[in-house]
């Protein structure tokens, strides 16, 4: 009997060992063993402590080479110093194996790959107390996690799998964001995103509202909601991706370009009132309409229009001029939002 455990742990750096590893993880999965059984399997096969961190599920485990539970590092990023592998579902889940860098470990890659894959499949199966709060559910629905995980998250939020929703992005700094929202890092810095069912309203601005989409596909509209948030302004604090149409796409594309129109609009930014006025003029049919939007007398708006036209170098009192202004303004907004977080390489995916 005693030799059983020795046989399990006696690995060489050869193909037979790789077969043994694959066979053992396959057997664990086929038997329906738990997640930590996979970690213990990795530890006993490799002869080194191994661990598992699933931030979305609040699961953090580490075992020694004999499979006994030991303390996890206080700083989860410390485990990235060891050979490690992230789960493929984009959930930031990671497994690691604590072999010192100066010791050979030809089997490490196979063990980590099998462990990560096994953990991923096991999450799907055991549905651990995974989604501990609504925010986590939103996070899963707004990330490229597995379809099963998204279905569970939708259930958690009491949304049917066919529910139509909009993904709404908010500035993260705002304390009054809805409870059912998740913090995300985006191209325009930290934001919060919420899911709003079709027909429901929300009371917070600035906000960027993505297109209407099935709840399980909502994660695909993340960049649209983020772009809409980037387009929001003082006079148009809630921007809907739909409402801007192709212009929103153009603005996102335009953020990567340098065009004199965009540079000149940027030149107005030192006076936020002028930027507001440009936007009001660009989205209104008349000066009076723009004045009503700004809450100003039309003669004041008239004066500002003259100043603005002097800076941007073209007339905006025509449909073509307004459109040209709007495109430049949109491109500027997106670029400006992006530049605040990523000055070196502004981009929106």
């Amino acid at each position, binding site marked *: 009997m005693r*030799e*059983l455990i020795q046989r399990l742990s006696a690995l060489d750096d050869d193909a037979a060992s790789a077969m043994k590893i694959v*066979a053992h993880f396959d057997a664990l999965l086929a038997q329906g063993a738990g997640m930590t059984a996979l970690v213990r399997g990795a530890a006993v096969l490799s002869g080194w402590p191994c661990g598992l961190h699933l931030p979305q599920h609040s699961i953090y485990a580490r075992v020694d080479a004999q499979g006994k539970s030991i303390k996890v590092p206080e700083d989860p990023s410390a485990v990235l110093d060891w050979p490690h592998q992230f789960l493929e579902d984009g959930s930031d889940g990671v497994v690691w194996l604590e072999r010192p860098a100066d010791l050979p470990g030809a089997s490490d890659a196979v063990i980590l790959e099998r462990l990560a894959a096994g953990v991923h499949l096991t999450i799907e199966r055991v549905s651990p107390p995974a989604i501990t709060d609504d925010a986590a559910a939103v996070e899963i629905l707004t990330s490229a996690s597995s379809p099963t995980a998204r279905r569970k998250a939708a259930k958690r939020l009491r949304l049917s799998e066919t529910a139509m929703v909009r993904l709404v992005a908010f500035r993260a700094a705002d304390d009054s964001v809805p409870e059912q929202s998740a913090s995300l890092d985006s191209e325009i810095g930290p934001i919060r995103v919420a899911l709003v069912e079709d027909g429901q309203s929300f009371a917070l601005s600035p906000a960027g509202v993505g297109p209407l989409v099935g709840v399980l596909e909502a994660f695909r509209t993340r960049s649209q909601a983020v772009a809409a948030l980037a387009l929001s302004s003082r006079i148009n604090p809630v921007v809907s991706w739909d409402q801007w149409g192709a212009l929103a796409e153009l603005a996102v594309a335009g953020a990567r370009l340098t065009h004199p129109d965009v540079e000149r609009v940027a030149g107005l930014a030192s006076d936020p009132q002028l930027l507001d006025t440009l936007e009001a003029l660009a989205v209104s049919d008349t000066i009076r309409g723009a004045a009503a939007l700004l809450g100003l007398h039309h003669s004041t708006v008239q004066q500002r229009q003259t100043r603005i036209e002097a800076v941007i170098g073209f007339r905006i009192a025509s449909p073509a001029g307004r459109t040209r202004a709007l495109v430049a303004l949109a491109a500027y907004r997106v670029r400006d939002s992006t530049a605040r977080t990523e000055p070196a390489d502004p981009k929106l995916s």
Partner: protein
Amino acid sequence: MNSRLSIPNVDPELAAALQVALDGTPSPITLDYIPGKRAEDWQTSDLARAAAQARGVRVEEYDVTTADGATIRLDLLSGPNRSATSPLVYYVHGGGMMLGNRWSGIDVVEDWIHRFNAVVASIEYRLAPEHQYPIPHEDCYAGLKWVADHEHQLGLNAASGLLVGTSAGGGLAAAVALMARERGGPKLAGMMLIAPMLDDRSGTMSAKQYGNGMWSVAENTLGWRSLLGEAGHRAQALPDWAIPGRCDDLANLPHAFIEVGSADMFRDDTVDFASRIWRGGGRAELHVWSGGFHGFEVLSHTLIAQSAVHARNNWLQRLLGVPESPPTH
């Protein structure tokens, strides 16, 4: 395909480990297989002994004269803090009555040297089929008697200690407890029977369910036949201690810790043994580990094996009345 891979209702983590660990293992044990297996056991034991010594375990070898005048070896294992109050752990190894030696499976008890400052005595009882009833029983009893008689010279406390045996060793440990009761021999505080081989009949439901398991009915039959020889034909006329599973009166025994897996052919015999202790007014703690096969605890990385070890250590703290020291290795 190894037949032992198809044991039903096994804990998933154990089953997966077994699939890899059993690769290429011959089965089942037969008489032809014994000499080679004993040689392997010694190789494993030499390593176990070296590892224990590397962990700071001191080993002393003694010769004990047995009932029939033969001399057998008994090893004492102790730690650096051994004192007159160190509890005796009298260890009887397993191996189906035919295999193993005094170092086989010693890790089951070695840890208590570190945790409880225990002194382990391990007896090299003579094995069947060469040595039949009552030689193995008497050898085990003689070793205990000798240690208890010399506790002051040896520096240990027998009365606060316990008998421990796994599998065949569990059956022999139970036999030694019954012999001590009958003969007014050493009184120990406890006995720990791990998946004990108690009964020669293999007639239970668990034997039917798990008769092709890690310890099979064929092997069990061979083991008992080898041990009892001709005496097996008059089993009912033998003393109580010859086959502990056949003994109805289990009163006045040391406090028992009894452990078995639910997927072990010994399950029902073991549960029944605990019940008879309770019926006799004695104390027994019974752990049946769901999905554990015979010897499951050797797959020590599994959660179920860790739990079994934890339960043993927990009971020992209650039996010995002292807290354990944190492990040092």
